[in-house]
């Protein structure tokens, strides 16, 4: 096999190259409510107007009673990290450039199981966590598990985890200097 091309010494891909590969941006219309709340720093999930079932992933109708009227309502995000994995392979360039990447499954106290990013500082599964919602670099909602004791209401939440800090940074801020 011929020589593998190497990136020139000292050169980094830089903000422009990274911007060319944002995180996956496609979502269904049903998922818009999640992003709308995340833009305000809030975690909201769909709650059925009739039976009160809380559900995730976002749906068009209630999975329990089939009612078509679902309301986005704030949730505490408390739950248990029931398992986790660290990815060493990804199909998307955004994540491929930033491996390894830690994700997990959280059983929320309000019912649903969510797949989530797991911030540095969260203990190994199983453990209690709090899920917060932030906008990611694609302008979409990203769910992130924090240690349960953290309230998740400040911009400093992601300090200590450069990958998630970068993922949830507002696009206008540009690259760190």
């Amino acid at each position, binding site marked *: 096999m011929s020589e593998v091309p190497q990136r020139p010494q000292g050169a980094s891909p830089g903000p422009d190259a990274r911007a060319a590969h944002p995180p996956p941006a496609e*979502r269904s219309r049903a998922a818009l409510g999640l992003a709308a709340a995340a833009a305000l720093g809030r975690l909201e999930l769909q709650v059925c107007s009739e039976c009160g079932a809380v559900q995730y*992933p976002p749906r068009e109708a209630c999975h329990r009673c089939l009612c078509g009227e679902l309301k986005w309502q704030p949730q505490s995000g408390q739950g248990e990290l029931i398992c986790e994995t660290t990815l060493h392979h990804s199909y998307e360039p955004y994540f491929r450039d930033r491996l390894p990447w830690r994700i997990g499954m959280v059983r929320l106290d309000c019912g649903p199981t969510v*797949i989530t990013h797991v911030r540095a500082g969260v203990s190994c599964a199983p453990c209690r966590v709090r899920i917060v919602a932030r906008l990611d670099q694609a302008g979409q909602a990203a769910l992130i598990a924090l240690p349960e004791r953290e309230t998740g209401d400040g911009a400093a939440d992601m300090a200590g985890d450069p990958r998630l800090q970068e993922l949830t940074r507002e696009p206008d801020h540009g690259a760190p200097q």
Partner: protein
Amino acid sequence: MRQRRRTGYENAVVAVPVTVPYVRYSPHGAHWFIAHALRALLERSGLAKSDLDGLCLSSFTLAPDTAVGLTQHLGLSLRWLDHIPMGGAGAVLALRRALRAVDCGDASVVACVGADTNHSDSFRTTLGSFSQFTQDAVYPYGAGGPNASFALLTAYYMRAFGARREDFGKLCIAQRENALRYPHALFRKPLTMQQYLDARPIAEPLRLFDCVMPCAGAEAFLVMSRARAQDLGVAFGRVLATMERHNSFPEDPIQTRGGWALDREELFTQAGITHRDVDFLQTYDDYPVMSAMQMEDLGFCGKGEAPEFIRSHTLTIDGTFPVNTSGGQLSVGQAGAAGGYLGMTEAIRQVTGTAEGTAVPDARFGLVSGFGMINYDRGLCCGAAILAGSRA
């Protein structure tokens, strides 16, 4: 109301298992592989193309076509057509539907085909838009694909039931040994425990040899009446019982079991055999943890006992409990929807005495299990069929 007893499959049989050899990548479309599968079915059965009046198709890479587009693409005039987008459960589900169609006279010969191509980027394209829940709630979290989902299930299962990496390794190594006797396997070298344990991590705890390799290829078989099979002089197998379940146990916080657990009793009752009579098991082995769950939920051992079951058996063709006798997807490769057919075509070969290199001595009864479609956090489709030879 008392549930009516299920009708058996008295008249329709399964025959002519076909494999279109796998390749890692192909410049051809899925249509090409389907055409080759159909051609092999006709050549091996002696049927004319016009004799084929039913088709049941599974394919992920046919888009923008569906099965009906294929009828014109390949010049097929049919009176019965089905398209089953249910991944690893495809062959069991195709078999169930085709048997009824033939038994009831809606079709006389049904070709069941699972086929896919693999271009350098087609797997990624399939992944991101696999389902609405995947797109919204899985793919954006690291885009690890099925490896990530099954890493989570495997991590949980290992902690809950005390499974070790070595247990899964034993299964993978046995399958590789089987694959060395199967002409179409893409993996041609033995696998050692050290290689298995030391392989490159993909999504912890999964390493390279826990993951199937996407490739291109096709698997197919025919369903027709027993009389027709006898006229044609083709070896055929009988189907003693089948089951399917979708979205079983939705209240489980994470998948540790599948719909087989709900139906195994009826399955064996309908088949009129016991677990001891089963000469081989073909699981849907997209990841070893799923083979473990299928062993448990189909009733070969209790919940959480698969690790011990694996430790106490030899799983090779000549072993005490032969599993995935062709090598399974882990050693043959996963040709998309054909992966859901791999165990079925191999099982038909086994019970019709045409398995050659991989033949389990005196195999009379075989169980084929299907599992498919991680829509969000778990696989939704479960299916199983018990097959027997024409004389068993």
